[in-house]
C-alpha cells in the first residue's frame, strides 16, 4: 500500500467521520448498514458498500486503510491506524468475516527477533479490534518478520514502509 493511498485513505476517513458527526443518526445507521436492510452506504466511509456485506470484495472499501505503520522498535498504534481500525471494527461487528493480520518489521537487527516484533505489532492491531467489540476468533495473526518487505531499499523511507501490519481476508 503506497503512502499516497494511505494519505488518501486517511483524508477520506477523516472526511467521513466529519460527515458522520454532522448527521445525528449516522452511527446507528452504520451499525445496520451491513445487514443489507437498505444497501446504501451510511456515514461510515464514502464509497458504496455492497448489500449484505459492508466490505464487498475489498477490505479497503471507502478508502479506509488496510495497512498500518509503526515507529522503529515500537508496536504502538498511531492515531491514523486507530481511526481506520474504528471503521473496520464497525464493519466487522456488523458482519464478521475472517481476517488475517500480517505483521512485519524492517530489516535491521536479527531475523527471529524481528519475527517476534512483527507478531507484537499484529497483536496490537488484533487487541485494538477486540477492544472495539470484534470477536477474536475471526482475527488470525501471523508474522513475517523481515521476510516479506514491501520496499527493498536500505534507507529510512524503505524501512518505514516495512514496519507495518497488513489486513487481508483469510
Amino acid at each position: 500500500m503506497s503512502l499516497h493511498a494511505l494519505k488518501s485513505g486517511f483524508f477520506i476517513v477523516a472526511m467521513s467521520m466529519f460527515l458522520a458527526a454532522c448527521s445525528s443518526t449516522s452511527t446507528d445507521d452504520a451499525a445496520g448498514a451491513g445487514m443489507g436492510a437498505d444497501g446504501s452506504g451510511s456515514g461510515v466511509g464514502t464509497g458504496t458498500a455492497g448489500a449484505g456485506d459492508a466490505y464487498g470484495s475489498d477490505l479497503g472499501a471507502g478508502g479506509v486503510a488496510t495497512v498500518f505503520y509503526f515507529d522503529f522498535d515500537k508496536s504502538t498504534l498511531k492515531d491514523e491506524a486507530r481511526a481506520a481500525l474504528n471503521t473496520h471494527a464497525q464493519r466487522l461487528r456488523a458482519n464478521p468475516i475472517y481476517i488475517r493480520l500480517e505483521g512485519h518489521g524492517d530489516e535491521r537487527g536479527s531475523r527471529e527477533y524481528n519475527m517476534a516484533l512483527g507478531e507484537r505489532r499484529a497483536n496490537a492491531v488484533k487487541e485494538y479490534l477486540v477492544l472495539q467489540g470484534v470477536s477474536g476468533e475471526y482475527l488470525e495473526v501471523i508474522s513475517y518478520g523481515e521476510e516479506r518487505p514491501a520496499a527493498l531499499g536500505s534507507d529510512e523511507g524503505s524501512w518505514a514502509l516495512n514496519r507495518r501490519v497488513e489486513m487481508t481476508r483469510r
Partner: protein
Amino acid sequence: MLKQRLFTLLFLWVFLAAGAQAELTIEITSGVDNPTVIAVSPVAMQGGMLAEDISAIVAADLQRSGLFTSVPRENMLSFPRNQGEIYYRDWKVLGAQYLVFGSGERDAAGQIKVTFGLAEVNSEKMVLNQVVNGTDASVRDIAHYISDKVYEAITGVRGAFSTRLAYVTSVQGRDGRQIYRLLVSDADGARERLMLESSEPLMSPGWSPDGKELVYVSFETGRPAIFRQKLADASRQQVTNFTGLNGAPAWSPDGRKLAMVLSKDGNPEIYLHDLASKQFTRLTNHFAIDTEPNWTPDGKSVIFTSDRGGSPQIYKLNIATGGLERLTFRGTYNARPRLAPDGRTLVMVHRDKGQFHIASQDLITNDFRVLTGTYLDESPTVAPNGAMLLYATKRGGKGLLAAVSIDAGVRFFLPTREGDVREPAWSPFLN
C-alpha cells in the same frame, strides 16, 4: 473462507559440478599482517588425471584462512613428488616457510591413494608425512583433509576445511515473486546442493551435532513451522505446527532435543522439544519477547535473546536449576547469540549508533570487541574450530555472506551470482 495459497515445493537433490558452477564466490579483503608463506607443490598423479587439482584446493583453503599466503605455481622451480626430491634451495629462494608436496596413485577402479608431506623450509625438517585415501567422487575431500592436517600442524588449531555451510537464498522469479532456497555447500562454496525450494520464506537453518540433518523454519503451510531434513536422502519431517511463532530451532549438543521459540501460549517463549518423546517443555515464562535460543557446548544451559529488560539483550538459563543470568550490558541491542566451541566467546548482533555489527564478548574477562565494519549485519555462525565466523550482511543493496576471523584480523565476502544470500549455518566437524 480460506484463501487458497498457490505455491510449489520441489525436493531436488542436485549435484553441481564442483568449482565452475559454485553459487558462492570468495573475495578476500584482508588477511593478517604477516601471513605465513606456504608453497603447495602440485600433487603428482600416476594412473590418470584427477577431476580436481588437489594442490590448488589446498592452496586456496590455506589462503582463505587469512593466515597463509601461497606461492603461485608459475613461480615454482621444481615439483618434488617425495621427500627425496626436495631441493630446499628452490623454496628458500621463493621465501617459502613451509612446503606441501605429494604424489598419488589411482587404480582402475577409481580408488585413490595420496601420500603427502609437509616440510619446514628453513630447518629442512619434515613435519608431516601421511597417506590419505579416497575415490574419484571425493577428490575435494582428499584435498580438504590435507588442508586440515597442514593447518593443524602449523597453527595447533584443528582445521575446518572439511566442513559444510547451510544457507538461504532469495531470488526474484519470472513472475516477480520471490523464490526461496535452502542450500548446502562445502566450506569453500563448492558442491552446492539444493535441499528445498519454495515460494514461501525459509529461515533459521541449523545442523544436527552429527552433521547429518538440518532443521529450519518454513512458511510452506501458510505460517511458520519447524522442519527437519536428512542430508542423505533429503527426506523431511514437520516438527511443529502451532499457531503463532515456531522459530529459531537449535539442536542440543547431545542430539536429543531442539530448543525453539513458540508463542502459542500468548507471547514468544523458549521451549525444549524432546525428539524421541515428542514432548515440549517450557523454559521461560515472561511477557517479554524471549527468542533465538542456542546451547552452551556442555548442553546444560540455553542462551537466548530477551527484551525483558526493555530492549534486546542476551541471557543464559541453566536448564536444571532454572537459574537466569544476563550476559550483555553494552549498548541497547544485543541479540542472536552464538557461543564459540571454547564456551567463553559469545558472538552476537550488536547495535552501536544505529548500525548493526557482529561483536564478541569474552564471558570470563568481559573483553568486548566489535568485529565488523559492515553495518547491516545479522546471523553470525562460528566455525567448529572457533577460528572464523560467517555472518550475513548487505552490500550495494544485495544480501551476501561475509567471514571474519574471531579476532577480526581476516575478512572476506561470499556473494552469490544472483539474488540475496543469508542465514549461514556452519556445520560441525564432519570427519
